């Protein structure tokens, strides 16, 4: 098999020494992690490698020799390097040598126990050690320690470099007996800001956990569980959103460090999402309270509600006349129209009763926008729901009436044809009726049939209005869901440090020279933005309606009530 040597590009200019890394025998690949320079004592090197192996659980060993001769080739050096092969016995012993500043290196192997002594082809693959160490392959495989042999070749290589972090902690300023060259050998990188944040995060997390336990204790208290209040909480979407954000805060403030990369990304995404949300909310709040815009909003609220009520009254007057040229049943029309008009009158009286308090309520409610833009949008959606409550009521009345009528009609139609619905067998059976039953049944059927256009028209009008309100609320909830579930940290990471989220690798063929091994450059192929969003999406609490369009139309036709936004955990009516 072809021998593949993965060589870190940072070691290209290192002084001569021996190569240490991991040998993957089933793929015939050698992953070089560092170069150990002369002078060294072999026993100390073996001991050091044993220590590293124990800590990282990666089978690091001496793979071969590396000679970087800046002048002419020295004869004694090559023999010395071959002798090293006998001290550190490794099958095969890889010898890489670079002359001067030449790009083309020669690579040969020494096999002591090989059955076929022919020349193996060697492929030299350069890789950027720091990027491969920090990168994560997607889709992430659940490998427990030591099962890396089952996984694909590339994940084994990424795994090797990532787990050998402790090897890269020694730099050239350390006073140990081993002198290494790797990506961090010029000096271990660290950031003061990161260290300070790490120190500050522990007390901050503890404080946050304490506050959250207080808040959740209050929420769970018995006072808030009484029937009217609990019903109210379940209907208001603001409470759902606040509960959702509380859960998020609990995730962030937990003391346990994130075990896997997915958990870490989720925590980071939640944190950034909360930050942006609160930032936008505070921006909105400052815009609302400047120039007393919220006062103006409160002032226009009552006239808008009045205007909506007036429009509804006009609509009802139109329906009570001859709408669109259709002829309605006069008596039923008047009854329904007057009933709905009275409702509107009641509603307007309530609104006018509340009008002195509206400004103050709105002022305090607007303050809660500082909890986040999502909370402000949910409050807006709830205000719309409250203001259009009468439309909802009318829709329910109209739908129930229409539904009753449709069921009545279908049942009497069966009677008209001499059939009956068999509840036991769940099918239509023929049945012989008495004459008086038939007479009354046909009479009722005729009455219901001729009253159908009136009821159907009222139902149609109010369903359309209700659907309009539902669509507006739905759009607001869509926006809230978008802000909730968008993994902003992952997207920013993909934009700025694209090598951390890897979908795979790509190889580039470098300049070749005949007789020298094939030179390839391995670069990281970053994940596409769509795949980033799909992998790291935060789960939300609302589930979109599972009804297909066909079943929705059927429900509308039959007059069954539609509940468009069901939240997870709510029972269907």
């Amino acid at each position: 098999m072809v021998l593949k040597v993965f060589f870190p590009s940072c070691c290209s200019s290192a002084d001569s020494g021996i190569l240490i890394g991991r040998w993957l025998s089933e793929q015939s690949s050698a992953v070089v992690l560092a170069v150990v320079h002369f002078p060294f004592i072999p026993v100390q090197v073996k001991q050091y490698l044993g220590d590293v192996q124990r800590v990282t659980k990666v089978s690091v060993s001496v793979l071969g020799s590396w000679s970087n001769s800046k002048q002419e080739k020295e004869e004694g050096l090559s023999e010395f390097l071959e002798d090293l092969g006998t001290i550190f016995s490794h099958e095969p012993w890889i010898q890489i040598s670079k002359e001067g500043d030449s790009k083309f290196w020669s690579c040969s192997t020494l096999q002591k126990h090989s059955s076929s002594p022919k020349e193996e082809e060697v492929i030299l693959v350069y890789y950027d050690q720091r990027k491969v160490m920090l990168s994560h392959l997607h889709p992430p495989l659940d490998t427990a320690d030591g099962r890396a042999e089952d996984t694909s070749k590339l994940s084994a290589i990424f795994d090797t470099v990532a787990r050998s972090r402790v090897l890269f902690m020694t730099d050239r300023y350390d006073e140990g007996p081993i002198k290494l060259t790797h990506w961090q050998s010029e000096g271990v990188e660290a950031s003061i800001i990161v260290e300070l944040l790490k120190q500050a995060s522990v007390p901050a997390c503890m404080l946050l956990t304490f506050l959250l336990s207080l808040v959740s204790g209050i929420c769970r208290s018995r006072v808030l569980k009484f029937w009217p209040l609990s019903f109210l909480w379940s209907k208001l979407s603001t409470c759902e959103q606040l509960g959702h954000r509380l859960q998020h805060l609990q995730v962030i403030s937990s003391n346990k460090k994130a075990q896997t990369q997915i958990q870490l990304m989720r925590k980071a995404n939640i944190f950034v999402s909360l930050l942006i949300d609160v930032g936008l909310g505070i921006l909105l709040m400052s815009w609302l309270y400047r120039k007393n815009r919220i006062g103006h909003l409160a002032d226009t609220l009552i006239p808008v509600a009045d205007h909506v009520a007036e429009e509804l009254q006009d609509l009802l007057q139109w329906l009570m006349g001859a709408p669109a040229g259709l002829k309605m049943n006069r008596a039923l029309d008047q009854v329904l129209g007057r009933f709905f008009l009275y409702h509107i009158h009641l509603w307007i009286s309530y609104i006018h009763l509340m009008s002195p308090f509206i400004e103050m309520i709105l002022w305090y409610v607007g303050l809660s926008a500082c909890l986040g833009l999502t909370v402000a949008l949910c409050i807006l959606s709830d205000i719309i729901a409250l203001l259009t409550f009468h439309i909802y009521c009318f829709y329910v009345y109209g739908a129930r009436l229409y539904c009753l009528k449709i069921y009545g009609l279908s049942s009497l139609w069966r009677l008209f044809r001499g059939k009956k619905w068999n509840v036991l067998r769940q099918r239509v059976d023929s049945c012989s009726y008495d004459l008086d039953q038939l007479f009354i049944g046909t009479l009722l059927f005729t009455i219901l049939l001729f009253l159908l256009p009136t009821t159907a028209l009222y139902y149609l009008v109010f369903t359309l209005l209700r659907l309009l309100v539902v669509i507006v609320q739905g759009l607001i909830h869509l926006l809230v869901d978008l802000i909730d579930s968008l993994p902003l940290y992952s997207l920013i990471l993909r934009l700025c440090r694209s090598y951390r989220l890897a979908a795979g690798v790509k190889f580039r063929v470098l300049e070749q020279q005949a007789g020298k091994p094939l030179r390839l450059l391995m670069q990281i192929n970053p994940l596409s933005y769509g795949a980033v969003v799909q992998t790291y999406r935060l789960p939300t609490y609302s589930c979109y309606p599972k009804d297909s369009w066909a079943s929705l139309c059927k429900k509308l036709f039959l007059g069954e009530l539609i509940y468009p936004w069901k939240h997870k955990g709510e029972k269907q009516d």
Partner: protein
Amino acid sequence: MAEERRFRSASGAPIALRRRQHSASCRELAVRGPRLQLRSLSAATSAVWLAAYGLFALSENSVVLSAAIFISLIGLIIYLHFIKIDQESLLVIGSLGIQVTSSYASGKESTTFIEMGRVKDVVINEAIHMQKVIYYLCILLQDPEDPQGVSEVVPLFQSSKPRLDCLIEVYKSCQEILEQRKTAPQSS
């Protein structure tokens, strides 16, 4: 060593196949489609701008003109960056894998690398599309559970659609390298 030969695509456009052998087990095969022609570009732009001028003459609103410029610029950028594929190449490295690259007219390259362990075979399939029979080259991926099964089919050269003669050349080159992995002795 590189050699280039001219062929035709399935729709009759001229394409060029370039073969490079980097080493005994590494080959690169690139199919280059026709470049963006200046006359089709100017025809499209002139059509959009004439329509915009017509609308401007009707409506006397200069927003129409700036909108037309904006639309043609954005449309050109989207076309060059997301739609027009200049070159599709296949890099076969024995014992490492197969890399499929598409280069767009704006310079963007989208690459996929498939490891050799997942590749079952490279074959030429035929497909019936409307009234034509089209040949296409594809990579068969191995099913991890079933050694005889195929889990996925990755079609190659989707946008340049070379004809059978070009595909046969590519097929032969790929098979020479794929055979090496069967005859190569296992590592000691």
